[in-house]
């Protein structure tokens, strides 16, 4: 627990980390409490369409008169949930595959690397589009598709960590003392592998948010009436000639979310880097 607190302290110390932390907290609060304190995001009131921000509608209304504040909050919630889920899943699956490849070696290891290379041979969005075209849209499919995109990254890192750990003398010592492989993995490999993976995860969150928003923008991600920042931007884009407001609120929220999580992720990475520690702590 205290190592997490000291991590937060380190992040607070760097100016960019501070901004990132503030933004991340703000976005989180918006996502969690926004929908609670606002009107029904799906309430259609066509006579109120395209209103500018005002007291009754903090971010204005969209083309169907729906309140943008609540829709944006909902969209942010969806974006955060999806990105956290995707990152968690790809971390887990990637770690399992990576550690297995590292431990097994031989043809298993090579096969895994080849598969990773093939997935990485596709530009991310292109692969996602192809998979969605074949397997259909929807929340579940979106989750699976984006997770597939990120598994190779986590897998490679887990594998690299495993490989370097495998040959360390302390592992040999444990083996000689009779520790079964299962316990070896659980007690030694996993903790050492998880650290860098979590740093990688925090750096990937903004990327996932962007990809999800992009796919939803294309209509290939989250489906209406469920709101995602991407679908909101798309709706706004369609009516760009008539009103700015639908686009601006969601686009700005997306930009802030990615900015905040990027700064936060970088601060986490810098704080976790042992080489940077030691001076003036």
């Amino acid at each position, binding site marked *: 627990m205290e190592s997490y607190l000291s991590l937060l302290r380190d992040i607070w110390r760097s100016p960019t980390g501070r901004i990132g932390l503030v933004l991340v907290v703000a976005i989180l609060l918006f996502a969690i409490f926004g929908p609670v304190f606002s009107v029904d995001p799906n309430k259609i009131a066509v006579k109120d369409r395209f209103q500018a921000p005002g007291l009754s509608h903090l971010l204005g209304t969209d083309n169907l008169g729906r309140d943008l504040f609540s829709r944006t909050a909902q969209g942010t919630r969806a974006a955060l949930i999806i990105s956290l889920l995707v990152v968690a899943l790809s971390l887990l699956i990637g770690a399992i595959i990576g550690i297995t490849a590292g431990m097994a070696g031989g043809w298993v290891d090579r096969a895994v690397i080849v598969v990773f290379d093939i997935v990485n041979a596709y530009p991310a*969005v292109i692969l996602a589009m192809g998979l969605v075209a074949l397997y259909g849209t929807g929340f579940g499919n979106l989750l699976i598709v984006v997770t597939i995109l990120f598994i190779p990254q986590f897998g490679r890192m887990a594998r690299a960590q495993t490989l370097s750990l495998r040959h360390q003398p302390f592992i040999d010592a444990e083996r000689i003392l009779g520790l079964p492989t299962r316990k070896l993995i659980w007690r030694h490999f996993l903790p050492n592998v998880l650290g860098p993976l979590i740093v990688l995860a925090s750096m990937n969150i903004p990327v996932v948010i962007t990809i999800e928003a992009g796919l939803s923008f294309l209509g290939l991600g989250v489906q209406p009436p469920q709101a995602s920042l991407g679908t909101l931007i798309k709706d706004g884009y369609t009516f760009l000639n008539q009103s700015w407001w639908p686009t601006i609120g969601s686009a700005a929220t997306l930009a802030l979310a990615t*900015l905040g999580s990027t700064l936060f992720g970088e601060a986490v990475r810098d704080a976790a880097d042992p080489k940077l520690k030691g001076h003036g702590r």
Partner: protein
Amino acid sequence: MPALANFIAHRLAAALLTLAGAILFLFVIIQFVPGDMITILLGPRATPELRADFVQRMGLDRSILEQVWLFFSRAITGDLGTDVISGRKILDMILEALPNTLQLAAAGLLVSVVLGVALGCIAALKPGSVLDTTLGVTSVAFITTPAFVVAIFLLLIFSIQLHWLPVTGAGAPDDPLDRLSHIVLPATALSIGWIGYLARLVRASLLEVLSEQHVRMMRAYGVPEGRIVRHFALRLALVPMIAVMGIGIGDMISNAVFVEIIFSRPGIGTLIYSAILNRNFPVVQAGILFSVITYITANLLVDLLNAVLDPRIARSLKQAA
């Protein structure tokens, strides 16, 4: 230089193998589609004749190995079939759209490299200055804002509000000036993220190189500072940038899809997208194939450029071999 030729041969072989793997992957994911494969692939227009024709073409009545072989040979020879909607050969459709996308990507690449390197150099030569700090802050904003958001804002401000630049399309094919005006905004949207990223990278790299002993050595021999920076330091500082570009090209291709759609430019991106909306999978598949080929080729070229610029790279292969 035999080491370099060796290196080229190895990388070429690796690229071809990756391409083969990618094509195989495409085949594999099609096999696992839930439901009736032919309906999904051909879409709602699947008449019985088309279905029979499809079965025969893809060899669905034959063994898996034969199907793989057919798939591969078709992909390699460029026989991508005929589009059920327009009746045109799919290959022609792709070849018509591809130059637009390549032009956009090239323009984006050019802008990001030129501006990114320039800004990075300026920041490195005056570290701590107002310019440097401003760049540091704005570059983060550039990097993190998603390209399609930038594209929409550019469209909003410069096309719709100010009417400075055209809104849609790629411009008349034979009028280079018109085409140029149509490419400005999309290329800018595409390059913004990269400008920020490259600027930071070049800044850090150049600062590091300038503090190294060989630069001191050149100073000790009286080489003017300008020449040291432009000739000796820059070349070394740009090496990490080239290495990074390979991965970045994949991002650029992905973002090109969004930019094309937002600006209604013809290109591979819009082609794939409209094909998805029309449930026209053969076109989608062809588009994906070409995107992968482009990506792998671009990566290969970047690797080769890297080897030419940094003589240490070809050597590592020689040692390993």
